[in-house]
């Protein structure tokens, strides 16, 4: 049968592409590869580094690519939180995260099933959790939280945990390198948080009451001070007024001396003054008909007297 050259070209091209894909693999800059020949690990380390490499297709050879960058293991996200009881009877929840990377791909691949990251994380979690609890339980609360920064031992605690984790996970056992262990945050169990809330409320209520009492004290002080000052001021004014009036009395001495020349007449005039003074307001006058000047009102002989009142005008 006659074959079209195009068909042959396309077929060859496709075979070449698919063949290339079957026989060549790439390792990225961020990766490291582990190659197995019939499920036995290859000792040829040249094919683990970034770049293109040749391989036999499956199932002869298998290529496992592992991410060699620093992985961040978040204990809070990956695991349950566990409270730590401190020597001072406080209870805290310590949240950490751990940075690790694959340092020995071959060992890592052998230790964890086909280089399973999940398995590696699970193992590392146990190590970190154990180290974290051991270290934290030896420190008092003020080592984690204190108003005095010199008392806090955040960095020291992190270093202690890191040292312990490194001693267990490094040392060529797992094929991983622990880069850092850091405390992400410190929290309190729910029951303790509630007591903190209660304490905060009591603290604020106490402060509110203190402010209220202070307000009352200061208000009373200000008012008393003002009243006292006013009283003093009026007393001073009264004293001054009396003094002034005394001076006025002194001025009357000369006029009394003149009046003393005719005391009877002076008393008569004074009586008149008093009479005049008394009549200044709404005064009701009850006058006897014998009163000087009213003699004309005395009873007349019967013929001249009538029962009608005598009309008088003011």
């Amino acid at each position: 049968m006659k074959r079209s050259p195009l068909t042959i070209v396309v077929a060859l091209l496709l075979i070449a592409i698919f063949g290339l894909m079957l026989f060549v693999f790439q390792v990225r800059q961020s990766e490291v590869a582990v190659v197995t020949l019939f499920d036995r690990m290859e000792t040829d380390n040249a094919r683990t580094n970034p770049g293109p490499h040749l391989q036999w297709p499956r199932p002869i050879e298998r290529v496992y690519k592992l991410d060699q960058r620093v992985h961040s293991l978040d204990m809070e996200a990956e695991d349950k939180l566990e409270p730590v009881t401190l020597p001072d009877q406080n209870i805290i929840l310590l949240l950490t995260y751990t940075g690790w990377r694959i340092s020995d791909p071959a060992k890592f691949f052998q230790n964890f099933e086909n280089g399973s990251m999940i398995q590696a994380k699970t193992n590392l979690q146990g190590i970190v959790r154990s180290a974290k609890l051991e270290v934290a339980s030896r420190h008092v609360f003020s080592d984690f939280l204190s108003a005095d920064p010199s008392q806090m031992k955040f960095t020291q605690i992190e270093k202690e945990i890191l040292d312990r984790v490194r001693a267990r996970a490094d040392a060529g056992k797992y094929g991983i390198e622990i880069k850092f262990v850091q405390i992400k945050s410190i929290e309190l169990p729910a029951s303790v948080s509630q007591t903190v809330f209660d304490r905060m409320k009591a603290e604020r209520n106490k402060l509110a009451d203190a402010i209220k009492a202070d307000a009352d004290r200061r208000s009373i002080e200000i008012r008393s001070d003002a009243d006292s000052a006013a009283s003093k001021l009026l007393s001073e004014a009264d004293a001054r007024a009396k003094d002034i009036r005394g001076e006025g009395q002194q001025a009357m001495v000369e006029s009394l001396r003149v009046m003393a020349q005719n005391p009877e007449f002076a008393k008569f005039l004074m009586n008149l003054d008093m009479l005049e003074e008394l009549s200044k307001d709404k005064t009701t006058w009850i006058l006897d008909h014998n009163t000087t000047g009213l003699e004309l009102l005395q009873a007349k002989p019967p013929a001249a007297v009538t029962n009608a009142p005598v009309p008088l005008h003011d």
Partner: protein
Amino acid sequence: MDRNVKRTGLINWIALLAGTAGMLLIARHVNSMAGLMGGILGGLGLVVALLSYCQMSLEGREQLEKLELDELSKSRGAASLFATAGEDTFPARRSREQFERYFIPVLTALLLFLQLAAAFFPWRYASTMAGVDPGRAPLALALFGLLGLILFILGKYSSGLARLQKQRLLRPGAAYLLLSAYACWTAAATLVAVYFNFVKADFYVGRALCVVVGLITLETLAGLVLEIYRVRLKGKDVRLLYDSRLVGLLGQPEALITTAAHALDYQFGFKVSETWFYRFLEKAFAWLVLAQLGILVLSSCIAVVPPGEQALLERAGRPVAGRGVIGPGLHFKLPWPVDQVYRYRTQRIQSFIVGAEPETVKTIQWTVPHAKEENFLVANRAGDLTADTNNPAASTNQTGGHPAPPVSLLSVSIPVQFQITNLTDWAYKNQDPAALLERLSRRVVARFLAGAEMTNLMSGGRGQAADTLRQIIQEQSNELGLGVNIIFVGLEDIHPPVKVAGEYEKVVGERESREVKILDAQAHAIMTNALAHGTATTRVFQAEADKFNATTNAVARASLFAKQSLAFAAAPGLDGVYEHRAYLDVLAKSTHDAQRKIINATGNTRQIFEFNEEPKIRDLGNSLIIPKENK
């Protein structure tokens, strides 16, 4: 039947078996829905190929039986023993007829159920699939491609053989081989799409293949129903019940072109399919497809990095020397998969929030929940609340068996904004740099708040605290090689937790009340002082006026007395005229404005005249009181 054809039928069946198994394994390996549907299509083809192979065997036996009878007839003459033979004389033919009459409908019905299940269950299963594993996609892509190529070559051969030798029984298997090949390539193309981040492509293609199987099912159902009413004519070729026209069309798309050409011929009234343009298209179709593929490959030699982005250029996995990081613009590179470009939005300001994620509310109130609250611990500074490590109970509340440590809780929302400044560090040093930066920022915030003063943070110290936080986060990001520039750290929405916010506001309220009380007292003091000053001044002035009056009166009185004494001397004695006149003047003047004047005028008659300004009458014993208006 030609032995070659029968062998081809068997090869088809074996190829479909291997292809189905291969596709299912690859699909499982890479978790591909499209690959799974390809395997299912191959499995259905396997059943069809088995049916046609059985039918092929029976027809072969029938032909052999016929040949043998023909040989016997020739050797024994016309008066053959079998000239009048009944049905039992041709067991192979009888077997074939019974197979076609009973088995094929029953088996086709069974095939219908299989097709129904193959369309229904994967359709439901598709939404629960985890999705393609991109790490395994390249290998699976190669395997799908290779498998497709093998199935395609075998399918083409079989379909050609069926067409040339008019072997209808070869056609169903060949069509399914070709369809399986196309399914393989579709699965491979889907993997390419997934590799380029079109994650949902596999899901949609898988569902589309489910629809195809569903249509094939409907066709089979229609065929079975129509078979009941089909007019059966002896000697007329019958289309195979399990042979799907749809599969034939999909497996041989060029048949579609032929059909379309015939339709055009009919529509236009002349042979469109014989025009030079149509013939050119027919001949150049493959080249055109190849050219398109070529353009596709060539297009992968160009990388366009949009503004605000940078990209990593890797050749076979390693950064290209001198061009490891490329900026915005047009770049040339080797075709995929040799050179690959990974784009990052480096100029874009990215952000995350440490603490509470604020909700979109117009007004934030401390006492009203407005975010999923996340509380940070802040050390207490008050002297009476400081931790006493020797006697912890002395400084803590004992509620519910747990002591309250000497801390307060603070709800914060801290947005952190950053830009990628060193793409190589960002991409190659940490597996998830964004998450690491977030954790790092949270750590810095927690540590900072642990030693911070709450009141200061909520008031004037906010800006300085934000600057300090930004510096620390930047330093620690540099230490971890994150390759970022921390642009902004803001301390927003800092307040006590909602549970205690009321008490905090109460303190603020009491402060305000204190100010009110003090201001009231001060106002009172001002008024009291002013009044006192006024009163004091009035009293002094009054005294001065009195003094003046006294002094003036004394002088005037002395002067008057001296003059009156002269008048008195003119008519001396108390009963003198001057005295009398002075007395009456005073009496008249004094009583002139009096409101009442009561004068016992009649003496013995006991009558009293009362001149009253008030409008009322009183009985004063035997006296008559006359109101002014009645007098």
